[in-house]
């Protein structure tokens, strides 16, 4: 099991380097998703399957989709014509696919080497996490829910487009609004 940890650590570090070194935000996003998946494999190997699932579903799923939506909305105005062709070039998806293939091979190896972990082999079971979360940490969970509500209201308020005099180009918001549905 050790070797899978170190391989996924190497994948995480490599893809993180490629995140901060890539020129286009979409490429960086793909590499960052691979980095998150690699860290999820590390979580699983370290005996935290619940957190590994959270990492895949919430981080690599929901939060990265949010990033992708914003990148797509911003790209709509400037260079939307050639974007499809840019996506299909191997330079966009070959690197992340190779790194993700390494992770898939690791997961297959883990599942083949051992059956699905039962409650006795996992270091910290999801039941323990739940008992801690809704036992001593219940106030923190409530505060987290309040934080999510505040973030929801704040994001709505900030992202709303209002008619205001902008410092740079007063007809810029109108031009974008015609392109966006």
């Amino acid at each position, binding site marked *: 099991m050790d070797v899978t940890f170190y391989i996924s650590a190497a994948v995480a570090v490599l893809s993180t380097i490629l995140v901060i070194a890539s020129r286009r935000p979409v490429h*960086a996003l793909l590499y960052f998703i691979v980095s998150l998946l690699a860290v999820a494999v590390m979580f699983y190997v*370290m005996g935290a399957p619940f*957190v590994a699932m959270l990492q895949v579903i919430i981080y690599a799923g929901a939060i990265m989709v949010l990033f992708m939506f*914003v990148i797509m909305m911003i790209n709509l105005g400037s260079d939307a014509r050639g974007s499809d062709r840019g996506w299909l070039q191997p330079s966009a998806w070959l690197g992340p696919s190779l790194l993700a293939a390494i992770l898939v091979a690791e997961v297959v190896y883990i599942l083949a080497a051992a059956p699905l972990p039962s409650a006795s082999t996992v270091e910290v079971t999801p039941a323990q996490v739940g008992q801690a979360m809704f036992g001593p940490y219940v106030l923190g969970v409530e505060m987290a829910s309040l934080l999510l509500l505040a*973030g929801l209201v704040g*994001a709505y308020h900030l992202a709303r487009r209002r008619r205001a005099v902008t410092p740079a180009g007063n007809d810029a918001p109108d031009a974008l609004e015609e392109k966006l549905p």
Partner: protein
Amino acid sequence: MTMTTVPMNHALAVAAVLLGLGLAGLLVRRNIMFTLLSIEIMLNAAGLAFIAAAAHWRQADGQVMYFFIITMAAVEVAVGLALVLQMYHHLRTLDLDAASSMRE
């Protein structure tokens, strides 16, 4: 089958490397998208350190802390991306140096 034979020091070293990479990206890149991604990298590294500690001491508290970190990251991304949209609508660019009017 023993799940954890990985020493905590190695996991913490990986977390430190990831945090350093995120900090480097935060300092080097001037695109606001990369700034947000670098902050996410650093938050993820902090979560990795928590999970390493939780696995070492076999306590659930580290995973609860990771849950809080992921909640905070989700909220931060939502508000940050709303700010990105506003900045793009106002300035027509994602360059952070274009939004330095408070400095001058």
